[in-house]
């Protein structure tokens, strides 16, 4: 690409044609404040904060202005300061500061700018005071009184995930970014919150309505097609990860967990960490992405007061073990191909809602948190000689959809609470636990023991690779013994399947496992999944086994992960997981001694019990929508 020279603040820099001024500035560590610009998304240039002055052009937004040969750019003139400050103050007046309950309080970009640019944050009266909070299932809350109308959520939902759950209604100062269509009945509170009768402030009124008014269907173009019921939320949380101001968040469970930690009565409190959070949580404490913090996390759980610090990775090994066996049975059966993974609850909801015709393709093996939760409340409860009802399981995960999953009736509350990475970090901050400086400890036995195959679940391709490792093994066991049960003494030949690694949206390969050739695909982001399913529907492609993760890069880019996120950060987190795998002595699920023990001592070959504990069914679902709280 052609390189050109540009001048910023009287210093020369090289730039590539096609780059924007902001691209160059960010690379050269020249500070330009910006809010709506996100590297995963298109340029919208609506916050008008990243202003710079270009000689001959006046004030321009640096995110949308491409470099040209020899342009002279200034980033801190009086004009810039004045306009930037005014626009930031206007934005501040859209965002009700609820800092005391905001989990971004240590990481708030608005507060950072307020300090750096000497904003008068109350120069304009707050205008969204009584804007409502909307909730999507048990997963996500959208506090419209904090929304700055940047539309990142709308874009990520529409373009990355193709779920189109958000819409932009109304115009001008009454513009409101909201979940599509009308709210549904609150599951607990009847009657329906009446959107139509809210704050009936007429249009000619001098005050902007304090609450968004009735959505004028006749004027809301997005609604003209009346497609509302075709779209729903899958709880992936990418809207959260791409919101610059924390208007969208996971439904908080930390208060309940905190209460239990303070007053547990006769309950046993157990925390379990998902694979990917060990390489991302450090970011909440100023560490580089990819910093491995397993030991510190184990220590932190104990310090907070949990009785046991376990690992969802054990659940991942159980999922792999079961799923590999299911795959082999599937391949021998007349069931429709491909078999899809189902450990990502957002992907499952996507299939159940958008593509119910593919439900029969989903593996029935439960996800890691459900597998380990089940084992804690059965196998481990037996060991403790405790009533499962007296055991509280808290998952700490990179995901908001896991909150929804844990609450599904079919999973019978084997997981009681789900904290996101951010939420757990917030809890640690709140209790003045400085994670990076904790003395690393081991996770507790027995359910803290896991293989390398489990840890890579956190990266796109990880589930596939783990399952292939074990499928390879079981296929060879089957050749020798005729059954698919663990057998000592069968050598393992293949560990790494590097074709399935990496952050591309769709990875395809033909791999050889146990002497069989399998056509596989690994997909991340629901938009890519939609493309894939559409092609599958037309019978254009043939696959045996396909992994799908809703979030970019898999769980390491999950909706519950620290913000900011971008491809570079995600790549660093993923690389760290593969490093953990490489350094672990046990790298396959079936070689995890705890897994072997559970199958041998607890299940004792009782396939019915295995089915009951590790498998569940799916069903087509109707639009769940959202409700006001």
């Amino acid at each position, binding site marked *: 690409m052609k390189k050109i020279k540009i001048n910023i603040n009287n210093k020369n820099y090289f730039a590539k044609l096609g780059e924007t001024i902001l691209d160059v500035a960010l690379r050269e560590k020249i500070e330009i404040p910006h809010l709506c610009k996100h590297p995963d998304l298109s340029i919208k240039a609506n916050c008008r904060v990243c202003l710079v002055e270009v000689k001959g052009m006046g004030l321009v937004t640096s995110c949308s202005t491409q470099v040209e040969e020899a342009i002279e750019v200034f980033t801190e003139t009086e004009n810039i300061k004045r306009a930037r400050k005014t626009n930031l103050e206007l934005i501040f007046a859209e965002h009700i500061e609820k800092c005391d309950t905001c989990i971004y309080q240590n990481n708030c970009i608005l507060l950072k700018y307020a300090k750096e640019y000497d904003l008068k944050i109350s120069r304009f009266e707050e205008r969204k005071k009584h804007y409502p909070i909307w909730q999507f299932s048990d997963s996500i809350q959208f506090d419209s009184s904090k929304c700055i109308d940047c539309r990142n959520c709308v874009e990520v939902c529409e373009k990355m995930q193709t779920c189109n759950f958000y819409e932009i209604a109304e115009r001008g100062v*009454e513009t409101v970014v909201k979940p599509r269509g009308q709210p549904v009945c609150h599951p607990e509170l009847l009657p329906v919150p009446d959107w139509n009768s809210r704050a009936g402030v007429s249009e000619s009124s001098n005050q902007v309505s304090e609450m968004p008014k009735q959505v004028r269907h006749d004027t809301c173009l997005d609604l003209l097609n009346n497609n509302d019921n075709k779209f729903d939320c899958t709880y992936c949380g990418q809207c959260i990860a791409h919101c610059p101001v924390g208007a969208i968040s996971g439904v908080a469970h930390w208060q309940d967990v905190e209460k239990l930690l303070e007053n547990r009565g006769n309950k046993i409190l157990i925390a379990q960490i998902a694979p990917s959070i060990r390489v991302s949580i450090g970011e909440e404490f100023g560490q580089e992405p990819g910093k491995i913090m397993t030991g510190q996390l184990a220590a932190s759980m104990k310090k907070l007061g949990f009785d046991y610090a376990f690992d969802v990775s054990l659940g991942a090994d159980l999922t792999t073990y079961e799923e590999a066996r299911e795959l082999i049975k599937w391949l021998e059966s007349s069931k429709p191909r491909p078999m899809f993974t189902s450990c990502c609850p957002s992907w499952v909801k996507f299939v159940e809602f958008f593509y119910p015709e593919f439900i029969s393709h989903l593996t029935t093996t439960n996800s890691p948190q459900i597998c380990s939760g089940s084992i804690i409340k059965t196998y481990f409860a037996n060991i403790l000689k405790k009533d499962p009802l007296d055991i509280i399981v808290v998952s700490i995960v990179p995901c908001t959809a896991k909150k929804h999953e844990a609450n599904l009736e079919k999973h019978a509350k084997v997981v009681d609470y789900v904290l996101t990475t951010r939420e757990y970090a917030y809890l640690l901050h709140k209790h003045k636990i400085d994670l990076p400086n904790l003395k690393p400890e081991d996770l507790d036995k027995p359910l803290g023991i896991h293989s390398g195959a489990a840890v890579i679940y956190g990266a796109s391709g990880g589930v596939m690779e783990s399952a292939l490792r074990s499928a390879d093994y079981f296929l060879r066991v089957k050749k020798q013994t005729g059954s698919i049960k663990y057998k000592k003494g069968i050598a393992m030949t293949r560990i790494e399947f590097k074709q399935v690694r990496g952050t591309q949206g769709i990875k395809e390969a033909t791999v050889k496992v146990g002497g069989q050739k399998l056509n596989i695909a690994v997909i991340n982001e629901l938009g890519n999944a939609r493309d894939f399913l559409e092609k599958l529907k037309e019978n254009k492609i043939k696959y045996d086994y396909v992994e799908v993760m809703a979030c970019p890069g898999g769980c390491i880019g999950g909706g519950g992960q620290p913000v900011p996120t971008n491809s570079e950060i995600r790549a660093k987190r993923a690389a760290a997981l593969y490093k953990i795998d490489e350094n672990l002595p046990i790298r396959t699920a079936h070689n995890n001694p705890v897994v072997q023990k559970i199958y041998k001592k607890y299940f004792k070959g009782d396939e019915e019990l295995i089915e009951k504990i590790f498998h569940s069914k799916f069903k087509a679902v109707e639009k769940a929508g959202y409700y006001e709280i």
Partner: protein
Amino acid sequence: MFTQKIIKKIRKAGLIGRGCNNFSTADKWEIVRKAKAKKEKFVICNVSESEPDVFKDRYILENYPEKVVDGIKIAMKTIKAKKGFIYLNPEYYEQFYDYIMPIVEAEKINIELYKKPLHDYIGGEETAVVNSMEGKRVEPRLKPPFPVSKGFLNEPTLINNCETFYAVSLINSGEYKNTKFYCLSGDNIKKQVKELPIEISIHRVLKEFDHTPSNKYFYQVGGGVSGNCYNFKQLNKKFSGLASIIIYDINKSEKDVVIKWLDFFKNESCGQCVPCREGTYRLRNIMEEYFTTGKLDKEVFEDLIFSLQNTSFCQLGKVSANAMLSYFKNIKNKNLNEKN
């Protein structure tokens, strides 16, 4: 041959687009003609006209619909577009459908009439036109790319105001006489349209409308509600911008005129960018307070206007304070800064 000839003729006539962008029509046509299409190019005749005091397009459609259709036909031939659209605001669509369709059918050209969903101001901005036609939210797009290279369905699209097509038709047939349409309206003034020479003074236009300027009135000139206000002594300047004059009673309540303008921009803002969405609303509110209490925070007033004029996403925000500022300066001879 035909193509080069007509563009040459348009250039020779010095035709400037009759929307409000002041862009050379010949240049625009040339760019679209040269642009490469993936599948096909389009011509759109913009009859969004959604301001209360601008109604020249209505007049043209009432009186010369065949010329407009002819102009579109010439454009389609020139840029090799198979399909043309007439983008009409909802009222015009209802009113003119039966006028225009017989002409289109008689001419056997592929022109579709498109009914704009809302009677809104921003829906006339050319990238908003494209969004609207694609069923998207009606608001301006980031430029570049411009519609001339990536317009409707991402194809090169020629969008001109309906008067421009009218003028092209005249140029092609040799009847063009350097005229354009002027609208007159105002307090106790009958709405009128006249075809008069371009490049004449405001004073002359008023004279043609049989109005004698006096200190009883003030005048808002060019661009309807975004036009500048002048007193009766300032009317010797050459007319520029969208050709409309609004005559106001000089004694009209200061509050009424200013709030009417500010309301217009507040209500017509698409809500996309911060300075316009928030700024037009805040400016309106502080002015309302000023008229009620006499108090105005000068710094806030100036900062809001600075931000609107210099950082708005599109022209709507940029011009939203023009009328008010020129009114205070030229009519009220008032420096708001002194009235704190």
